[in-house]
């Protein structure tokens, strides 16, 4: 017996050592499950340059400034004009020098960083970008009005001092370690021109076309209607491959795809519904491609509800979620199962090999153990205090796929004895319900910003509901604190992996699926799109010369089996 125990202990120690060693090899290179390539019957070969393109967008891009774009559906439009120190994104841990030639850690504790700004980069008005612009931007994000990006300097991480130490050098100092500054913060924050912004009293009201350093200049626009972009001849990365791009707002998805089909637009910058893949597969004018978009669909639960304070109960419910069925029936097989958990399966920050089982019997046992029993004999479980349960699953009416998913979830929850029903409400009401906590479950889309970014993962704990988990679950809080105190990227990644593992064991939300990222365009107009994770094919890199985009984009030259 002692020898057996000894062997077991040795095995556990070995596994522990191995997992420790694995954690040092960070950030990981994920095995990309969502391949990039062509799904159409024929892999066409169209023009690699174009005079002009018209592309449909669907979500308001407002004035295309960091103060009026609040979502991740159209941030690529902003990045056509405004650029970041490193690129392409915080999602892949492959940040390349962009407006900065180097971003380096200065202090061993990860608190101080410096960036060398690329010389000779021109703003769209012809003036040169300097360290002053960068320092101004980061300071504005730190102390100015809140926008979608500001929490990356004012919260996670919390930078306290930003200064230009030379004409082309900027220094960043934080009170706590920020070992991922070069991987998350620097590739996240769009740089503003000091000259344009320093005298703007209210950044949310700037209506002049924003001046950036990007490959395209915004020359004319009507918010919510169209945006006319013209190639910037003095772009430091070389002349873009398309001279003019007009982005037109088409909110209705059917109209958008009808316009693509009829040739009124050259590309549709929104995910192609799975059912159209089969329908358009042989269309000679349209190319359908798959490109990892790092999006996801999850079912959140209201953590303000005392019922969900019980972490074992949350786990028991997660066992009842049959994500594979959702993939088959809702996404027609064009997605990856969400059983991997949060964050995204293909994110570089994600611990490989995680899986949440689907086990109805274990789920039932867990619910029993949590005191969820059928007291009133109606065939459904009641709360531990005997109160009947009828969970509300809220969805937004503008997401028909999610309404379908919610209907299936009603059946899946019923299979373990939990009664629920679907409530479809308008978008704004949906957002209000989910942020105010007036619901039990909600199904919604989650963008790469929330699904594939380590800092944002931790940023979620600033919210009221997630903070409650930290208060109630000391183990979770301990890992969270460890993440904050980690001085090295490796230690931080290890803490993040532990947090992910804990989260998947005691989930705060259930991942349902990760869509394959399906896009369509008219190949005879332009056929030089590339894939970069997190953005699909519609992003500025699709309009840059090969030399400028090598290393972090994937050409769409591979024919995928359909």
């Amino acid at each position, binding site marked *: 017996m002692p020898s057996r125990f000894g062997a077991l202990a040795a095995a556990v120690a070995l596994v522990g050592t191995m997992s420790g060693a694995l954690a040092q090899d960070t950030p990981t290179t994920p095995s990309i499950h969502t391949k990039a390539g062509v799904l159409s019957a024929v892999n066409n070969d169209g023009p690699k340059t174009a005079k002009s393109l*018209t592309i449909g967008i669907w979500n*308001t891009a*407002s*004035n295309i400034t960091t103060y*009026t774009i*609040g979502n991740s559906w159209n941030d690529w439009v902003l990045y056509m004009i405004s650029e970041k120190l490193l690129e392409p994104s915080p999602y892949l841990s492959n940040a390349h020098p962009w407006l900065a030639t180097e971003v380096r850690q200065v202090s061993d504790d990860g608190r101080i960083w410096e960036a060398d700004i690329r010389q000779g980069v021109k703003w769209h008005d012809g003036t040169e970008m300097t360290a002053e612009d960068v320092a101004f931007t980061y300071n504005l994000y730190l102390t100015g*009005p*809140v*926008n*979608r990006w500001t*929490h990356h300097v004012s*919260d996670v991480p919390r930078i306290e001092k930003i200064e230009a130490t030379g004409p082309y050098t900027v220094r960043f100092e934080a009170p706590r370690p920020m070992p991922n500054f070069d991987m998350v913060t620097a590739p996240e924050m769009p740089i503003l021109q000091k000259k344009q912004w320093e005298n703007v009293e*209210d950044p*949310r*009201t*700037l*209506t002049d076309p924003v001046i950036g350093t990007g490959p395209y200049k915004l020359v004319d626009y*009507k*918010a*919510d*209607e*169209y945006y*006319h972009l013209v190639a910037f001849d003095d772009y430091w990365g070389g002349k873009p491959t398309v001279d003019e791009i*007009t982005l*037109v*707002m*088409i*909110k*209705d998805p*059917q*109209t958008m795809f*009808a*316009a693509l*089909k*009829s*040739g*009124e637009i050259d590309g549709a910058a929104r995910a192609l519904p799975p059912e159209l893949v089969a329908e358009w597969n042989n269309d000679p004018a349209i190319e359908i491609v798959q490109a990892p978009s790092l999006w996801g669909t999850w079912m959140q639960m209201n953590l303000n509800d005392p019922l969900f304070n019980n972490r074992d109960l949350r786990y028991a419910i997660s066992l009842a979620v049959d994500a594979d069925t959702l993939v088959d029936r809702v996404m027609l097989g064009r997605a990856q199962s969400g059983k991997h958990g949060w964050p995204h399966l293909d994110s570089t920050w994600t611990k490989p090999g995680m899986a949440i089982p689907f086990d109805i019997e274990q789920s039932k046992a867990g619910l029993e153990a949590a005191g969820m029993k059928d007291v009133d004999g109606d065939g459904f479980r009641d709360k531990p205090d005997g109160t009947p349960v009828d969970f509300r699953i809220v969805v937004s009416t503008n997401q028909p796929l999610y309404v379908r998913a919610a209907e299936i979830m009603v059946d899946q929850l019923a299979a373990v004895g939990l009664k629920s029903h679907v409530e479809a409400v*308008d*978008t*704004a*009401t949906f*957002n*209000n*319900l*989910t*942020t*105010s906590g007036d619901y039990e479950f909600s199904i*919604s889309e*989650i*963008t790469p*910003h*929330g699904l594939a970014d380590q800092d*944002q993962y931790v*940023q*979620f*704990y*600033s*919210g009221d*509901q*997630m903070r409650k988990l930290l208060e109630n679950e000391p183990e979770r809080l301990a890992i969270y604190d460890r993440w904050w105190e980690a001085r090295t990227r490796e230690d931080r990644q290890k803490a993040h992996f532990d947090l992910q593992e804990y989260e998947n064991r005691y989930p705060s939300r259930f991942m349902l699926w990760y869509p394959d990222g399906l896009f369509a365009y008219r190949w005879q107009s332009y056929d030089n799109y590339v894939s970069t994770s997190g953005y699909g094919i519609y992003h500025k890199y699709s309009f840059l010369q090969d030399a400028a985009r090598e290393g972090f984009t994937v050409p769409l030259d591979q024919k995928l089996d359909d």
Partner: protein
Amino acid sequence: MTYYIRICLQYLLALFAALTVNFLLPRLAPGDPLNSLLGSDNVSTMSEAQKQEVLADFGLHLPLHEQFWNYLTGIFHGDFGNSVVLGMPVWDALMQRLPWTLLLMGLALVISTLIGTLLGILSAWRRGAVADIATMTGSLFIGSLPPFWVAMMLIIVFSTTLGWLPSFGAYQLGTSFPNWNWFLGVGKRLIMPVAALTIYQSAAVLLIARSSMVMAREQDYVTFARSRGVSEGKIFFKHAFRNALLPLYTHVMLGLGALVGGALIVETVFSYPGLGSLVVTGVNSRDYLLLQGLFVITSVSIIAANFLTDLFYPLIDPRTRRAG
């Protein structure tokens, strides 16, 4: 004179009530503009103080009565505030889109009134005949088709399948007024939205016109005219039609007032940059200031149309004239 003063006062009261409702209505709906401005994943991680800070940029952090006062005084200064979702003054956004809505809705109103009235009169003329029954059945069927469905069918047939007409927008991008191509683009892009609205609206006009005519034809003065040997055509157009005009006039005038409100669904399906699609944008993003502005101009135009309708009634129908 006292009558007109009283009417004016009534309308001023109605206007104040409408302005109050316009202010309250968006705020009664659950939600706020933060999710639209910052994204729900960001809002869910913000503190209450941060949220209030953002709302303060739009004056939405103030107590309700102060917001209401600012709103009322703003109207008289032509200051409707700044749209959260568009990042521009609400007034500018309204003025940018108003002409398109007036064009679209105005055309649909004129065409549907002409078609509906004509068919309604013919139907009443042939009351009970096969043509009457066919017109009634057809109009009821067509009028009950949801406009968004009609709009989608038109796009599928005329844009996707035949490729004859553009499916979205109000003008060809890259052209400018008063270029010939601009006019051509505007005309082409009006056909389908106007058709969708006309199909829907003309059925209502037809029913009103028909029932008014049928009722008028049963009046004593028609019987009297007939007994005097007046021709049927003269009776129909000179006596019956003039008297049947009043309900039609009311319908058209109310339509004129509602014109400014735009066509929410049709404008959205065709991505037509009018006020209707702006309402949808405002509602989806809970952009209170934008919605207030939209509702104000809609209310004012409806009340003004009602006012004009009241004023001109006596000219059309002498029976509505009052002594003094």
